């Protein structure tokens, strides 16, 4: 059985860990932009396999539940409603057959996720369900589509402590193969500049806004096309920097001034409109330390989860819990 897409805006897709190891064939890994939020969903369901969730970018959607199951929402701050009643993010909720789930008003951050117990079981292409619109792989959400999932999974109602990493003020970068092509003065100015994310943003990359001159390098330099990494900050012919994300092209010919470190890549992608930030240059050693710290954060995520004790009056999905299952009249044994 499935979740039916009733109303969706551009840019929503199914995402898991992506398809790695295929860059030599022209396919970048893709996968959830906010891998931390994806992991939160998996932790809540105590399912650490490569499950897939819906990824929303900048706006939400409306869904019809065809088969009773458990859901949760993580990532960018948004309003989650079950049959019109608000449900907190980071909390598992049960939606019965025929229920309507709505995600709306992404207010802080940009990428929001809807997880279902066991993950969505949409088509598997090259080892992943991740939607990549350019490559025509995986699933991009469209109105009327049905997104299958397993039914009748036993789930404990739990919630995870919210961790607010939206609108980071400081994003760490390291030098890359072409950093030396940029004059030191220009790199210094880049590090002094206050950036915002422009409206030109998608799963391929985010173009940056800033006041002041562009970051043109000598002669509008163009290098021979070479492999591009997640987080590379490419500077185009006009001198405008773009941070390249999961669905970037595998190769490119614009020089890259630096690369966002792996521990910060999902944070830069989650920065919302009008939120300002700086880049800070760190060493490769510091980047690796930050990555290990991030790894610890993921492996200890389970400590952030607790069983839910709620006041019944706050439980908008109360009636879906079968509260009187197993009740008896009291006289069943009297006759014997």
């Amino acid at each position, binding site marked *: 059985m499935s979740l039916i897409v009733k109303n969706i805006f551009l840019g929503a897709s199914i995402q898991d860990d992506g398809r790695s190891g295929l860059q030599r064939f*022209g396919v970048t890994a893709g996968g959830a932009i906010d891998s931390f939020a994806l992991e939160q969903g998996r932790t809540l369901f105590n399912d650490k396999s490569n499950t897939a969730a819906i990824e929303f970018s900048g706006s939400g959607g409306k869904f019809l539940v065809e088969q009773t199951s458990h859901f949760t929402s993580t990532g960018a701050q948004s309003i989650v409603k079950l049959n019109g009643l608000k449900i907190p993010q980071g909390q598992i909720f049960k939606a019965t057959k025929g229920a309507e789930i709505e995600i709306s008003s992404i207010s802080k951050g940009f990428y929001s996720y809807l997880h279902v117990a066991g993950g969505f079981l949409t088509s598997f292409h090259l080892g992943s369900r991740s939607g990549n619109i350019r490559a025509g792989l995986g699933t991009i959400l469209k109105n009327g589509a049905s997104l299958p999932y397993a039914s009748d999974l036993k789930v404990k109602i739990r919630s995870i402590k919210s961790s607010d990493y939206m609108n980071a003020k400081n994003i760490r970068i390291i030098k890359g193969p072409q950093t030396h092509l940029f004059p030191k003065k220009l790199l210094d100015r880049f590090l002094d500049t206050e950036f915002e994310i422009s409206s030109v943003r998608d799963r391929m990359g985010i173009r940056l806004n800033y006041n002041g001159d562009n970051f043109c390098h000598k002669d509008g330099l163009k290098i021979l096309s070479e492999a591009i990494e997640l987080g590379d900050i490419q500077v185009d012919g006009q001198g405008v920097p773009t941070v390249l994300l999961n669905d970037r092209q595998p*190769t490119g010919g614009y020089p890259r001034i630096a690369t966002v470190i792996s521990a910060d890549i999902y944070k830069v992608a989650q920065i919302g409109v009008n939120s300002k930030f700086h880049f800070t240059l760190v060493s490769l050693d510091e980047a690796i330390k930050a990555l290990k710290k991030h790894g610890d954060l993921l492996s200890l995520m389970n400590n952030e989860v607790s069983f839910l004790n709620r006041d019944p009056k706050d439980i908008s999905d109360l009636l879906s819990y079968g509260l009187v299952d197993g009740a008896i009249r009291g006289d069943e044994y009297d006759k014997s």
Partner: protein
Amino acid sequence: MNIKQKSITFPKISPLGDKGLIVEFGDHFDINLNKKALALDFILNKSLPYGVTETAPTLISLMVRFNPFETTYEFVAEKILFLLESDLDISANNGRLFIIPAVYGEEDGPDLDEVADLMEMSADQVISNHLECEQQVMMLGFGAGCSYCGLLPPIWDIPRGDKIKPSVPGGSLLIALRQTVFPSTSMPTGWRQIGKSPCLTFDLDKSPNFLLNAGDRIRFEKVSKSRAKLIPHDTLWETFE
């Protein structure tokens, strides 16, 4: 990060993010530099160093990605420097030869006449010259299963077009800069289309999904439009099953 290198500038190894590195063999295109990148790719993949997860050759460089929880930049870079010290056998990765049927000109090659003008030849001469050339897959990039093949003789050194076409179909033969770009999916391009093959080299239902690998060689074989219609798009897999 100070990996000791000889006084020569190339090959140059630099970090690419915190999970990879790039080996650059030069700063301008040269087919021998491509052969070196392919040779290093080949020798690395014969026995991937511990922690190395993937490699991807491009025109004159090689990307090497690794798991930083299992190895370090320094370790992988040292390993590669060691391989580079011994002369790379650039004929080691000679790949397999694929003969690819293609229709030239008319609706399958709308830019053939323009290319002929730029090369100061007749369209027929362009076609026969293209058919004579055995080309190497120098890299895959831009899109899934899109091969960059070359090098064609110097007369093929024509620029890319001025206009970007919003979409050319998979199987197109696209020409510029002494190369044939042979995509497997439809894509936008500024390159000039002289022909189209009924065959693709990327298929989700085939094993392997990607037939061509960097290092393989290709030659085109001219077929008529009516003949091409009878050739299934996955024919090339059968040649190698």
